């Protein structure tokens, strides 16, 4: 019987070694270890053995079973691994084929610019105010020190609806409205973005509709140097720490003194180039100290309160920042234009 067991073992080992797949291995398992397997039938003949021989042969038989089981397990693992490898090999794909496109939306470039400016001034303690696009002559002009017949009204080619109603030519009426609402009683610190309209024929540099963003700060003892410092902070964080600002005298009916602000040209660092029209400076915004007439009309005592105001054009900023050559792009909404500015924030002019 010992010989018989040994033969079974050797035979099994050889077959396990040769087995090529899990099915074969399963068959081997049944053949040797199954209920009708050869090892089982050998063990069934144990009854014929002597009392002394039985435990000895029994032990051998157990060892053979253990050995075969181990060999089958080992082989199973090997074959499973091989099968998995095979499967993975078959699952290989061409990773260079393009992926499924994702629909990505995004803000309009002007929204990006406006929100960046909003956030910047919110950080400096400003609130954001909005106002109507159809304005009265009073708020658009008179409350801003532009009485009827004032020559500076020529600067604004206005879309009138009636003698008294018009499309606002600037966002400044929001300043007048806010001050009036505050009734001369409390400081004002606000910016107001929005759409404005002028009688211009649309071309590369003119648009009958465009956007503006204005700021106003009214309090006791606001100085012109505060305007300069505030604009400097704005310019450096909007356009880069290395940029210088320059103020030049200018004229707006609602401010006195008035300023125009330039920033140093990034391209030539002030030496002059085509971007800055060889001046080394790029005009960015206008502003000034709030005219006493404007304060008084809104109910502020101009002896006690002073203030500054400034205004800029997001289109101009965007055009300078990205080198855009035609203002109409902002309103044509060509997909090939819009998709260039999915995340129109950051960067420097």
């Amino acid at each position, binding site marked *: 019987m010992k010989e018989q067991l040994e033969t079974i073992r050797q035979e099994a080992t050889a077959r396990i070694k040769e087995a090529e797949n899990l099915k074969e291995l399963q068959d081997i398992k049944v053949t040797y270890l199954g209920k009708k397997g050869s090892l089982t039938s050998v063990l069934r003949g144990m009854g014929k053995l002597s009392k002394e021989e039985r435990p000895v042969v029994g032990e051998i038989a157990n060892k053979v079973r253990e050995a075969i089981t181990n060999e089958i397990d080992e082989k199973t693992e090997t074959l499973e691994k091989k099968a998995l490898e095979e499967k993975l090999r078959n699952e290989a794909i061409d990773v260079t084929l393009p992926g499924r496109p994702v629909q990505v939306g995004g803000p309009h470039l002007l929204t990006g610019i406006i929100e960046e400016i909003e956030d910047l001034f919110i950080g400096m303690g400003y609130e954001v105010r909005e106002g109507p*696009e159809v304005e009265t002559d009073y708020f658009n002009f008179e409350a801003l020190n532009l009485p009827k017949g004032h020559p500076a009204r020529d600067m604004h080619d206005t879309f009138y609806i009636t003698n008294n109603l018009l499309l606002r030519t600037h966002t400044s009426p929001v300043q007048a409205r806010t001050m009036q609402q505050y009734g001369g009683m409390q400081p004002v610190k606000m910016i107001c973005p929005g759409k404005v309209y002028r009688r211009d024929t649309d071309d590369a540099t003119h648009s009958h509709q465009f956007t503006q963003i204005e700021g106003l700060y009214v309090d006791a003892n606001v100085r012109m140097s505060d305007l*300069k410092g*505030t604009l400097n902070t704005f310019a450096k964080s909007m356009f880069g720490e290395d940029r210088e600002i320059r103020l030049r005298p200018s*004229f707006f009916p609602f401010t006195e003194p008035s*300023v125009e602000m330039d920033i140093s040209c990034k391209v030539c660092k002030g030496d002059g180039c085509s971007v800055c029209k060889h001046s080394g400076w790029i005009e960015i915004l206008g502003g000034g100290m709030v005219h*006493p007439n404007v304060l008084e009309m809104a109910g502020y005592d101009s002896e006690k309160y002073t203030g500054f105001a400034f205004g800029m054009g997001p289109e101009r900023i965007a055009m300078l920042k990205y080198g855009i050559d035609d203002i109409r792009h902002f309103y*044509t*909404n060509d997909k*090939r234009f819009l998709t260039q500015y999915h995340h129109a924030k950051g960067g420097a002019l």
Partner: protein
Amino acid sequence: MFVSLNWLKNYVDIDSLSSEELAEKITKTGIEVDGIEYIAEKSRGVVVGYVETCDQHPNADKLNICQVDVGEEQLQIICGAPNVRQGQKVVVAKPGAVLPKNFKIKKVKLRGVESNGMICSLQELGIEEKYVPKDIAEGIFVFPDDVTVGEDVEPLLNLNDAVLEFDLTPNRSDALSMLGVAYETAAILGQDVKLPEETVHSAAEKAADYVSVSVKDPDLNPYYGAFIARDITIKPAPLWMRNALIAAGIRPINNVVDITNYVLLEYGQPLHAFDYDQFGSEQIVTRRAGQHENMTTLDGEERTLSNENLVITNGKEPVALAGVMGGLNTEVTDDTTTVLLEAAYFAPSTVRTSVNDTGLRSDSSTRFEKGVDPNRVEKAGWRACHLLETYAGATILAGPVSFDALDRSEKTVEMETDEINKRLGTAVTADDVVSILNKLQFSFEQDKDTFVVHVPTRRGDIAIFEDMLEEVARIYGYDQLPFTLPEGASQAGGLTGKQQLKREVKQYLQSAGLMETITYSLTDEAMIDKLISPELKEKRPTPVQLAMPMSEDHKYLRLSILPELLKTLAHNRARTQSDIHYYELGSVFVTNGEPITRQPDEKLRLAGALTGLWISHPWQQEKKPVDFYLVKGIVEGLFDYLDIPAAFEQVELPDMHPGRCATISINDRTVGFLGQLHPAFEKSMDLKETYVFDMNLEAVLDDYTNTTGYRPIPKYPSIARDIAFIVDEDIKAGAIQEAIAEAGDPLVKNVQIFDVYKGEHLPEGKKSIAYSLFYQDPDKTLKDDEVEQSYQQIVSTINEKFNAYVRS
């Protein structure tokens, strides 16, 4: 305003600066210099020549052979100009000379005859054609006799001049004169101003013997001065004056006209020269025009006037529209010998009205409209007389005859050094202020730190302390101001809840895959009543129309964002961009009734338009076009995001697909609509299948309540049951869903549709809709019989309500 630097040098010393440096300083101090023009490119080897002989070319009718003395030598030059004559002093480019555009002069042979150089026209020297006097526009330039043969022509013709182009703000009309520019330049450089010569050797004869002056409306015409200049010879003005006018952008005509133009530019005071012999009377009467009074202006146009216009008359009929244009009959001509010279102050308002009425805007009217310097009106008259005497041989009669009610007083402004520093944030001293006022040439009285400034009348823009503050600041230098930040109490800035929410709505739509657009608020007549949301249309809004639109395309304020948004889709489609997914957030303008007297309501709306493919992945054959349920999903997602329940109901709207359109409502109130455009409308706009949505965002946001609480996460498991009903085809799935939710309340927490089926195994005209019901009790684990009871309740309700039976 064009400022010739050679001209400016007559009044102020600017020789130490280059034109670029001067431009930079002027810009920084307050007048923006837009550009520097050079009269002509540099020429070399161009001199004055004397035409000794001039004979016709033997082989060419139109050419002349000239022997020209150029000083050191005599040159034979062939000249084709029709006006070349023996005895002229002309411009000669010698062989080797270089003219503008790098045109090199060489010795050549013309029709067999040698030509050693060229006799030049002004155009050939680089002067723009429009400034060349008309009589020599086709020919060469001829010098007056007093120039020296062989002399370089560059200074003689002012070719070395640089011209600064001022971009003047409306307040700085003082710089509409060379004298004003001189004061400004002098203030910047700390120099003096040298004033022009105004002396005249008046004759004993009196102007008053020739003319009387009567002013009917002193408010409109507070000063009128009439000078009489006799014995005039009309001829070209002196070369220097012609050069100056060309540099300033004015074409020279003759000495009298050129002198009035020259003084206009020099003093900023418009003058008018009438031919005295054609004046038609010996009296000047200025008055308001009569209603519908007619006159023919110098340009030959017949004008109908009103009593807002001021006219100059000869007592019988108008001879000039005051400040704007003279009449045809009294114009100075070559035969004029006696000139009546008008120097007047016309009120800005009347000139402005006349300009607007006639559309005639000129160098003169521009200055009157802004208000001329009252102290320079009469002086300008004398200056012109001085020039007429010198360059037109005029005899100036004792005068002028004038009407004078003009206020020439100077305004005074008080200021204190402390207040200046408080406003500017500076630390200027009283001495600094003194120095600044001296530079500006403003007279003042000083008491330690207090100043009373007498503002010269040439600076009509300065009236109050803040105006003087700007003067001090700009001469002190804006670049000298310190950088400070406001010292007021700080406050927290931020967005309002609604502003924040608006940003979130945008963010949601963008992450859902839509691109933001900004379109025009003004639309055209054909589009103004298109695609107006039903709840808005119900109010019968009146379109707000511009009084004077620039174009038919932008005439009405929009009542819906969609029309202009759809135009951008068509624009893109025409450029083969066919997959477009856009949204826009903006105002529409709603008002009722006509005429419009109040500001329209500006309603914030949110609209979207989608067309083409939503998903396109060609190599996997995946193509999913935009459809109704995509757009609805985006809209539903927005309401989920805002946690506002919204309902959708089938509706038929104009220009929308009758079977694919729904209203959007919240709290039983319609706030918008969505759906597919009607194919006929799509076609009319050059669009393919297009889906839109539009809603009153303001109403939606008003409904938003900020959830500050907390909804506990359920502790007990939920149980799902599926159920399918067979119903008539026209029954809406949403209605059944709503009824299920109602019948299953409170245990049914959620109802979802997972299958809609029509066709085989179902009777004709029926469909099956399958729902998943999710049961949950927040307080305990649900028992099967509880669920079963509710389930049966739902089945019987739906059966009753919709004649539906359960599909097994």
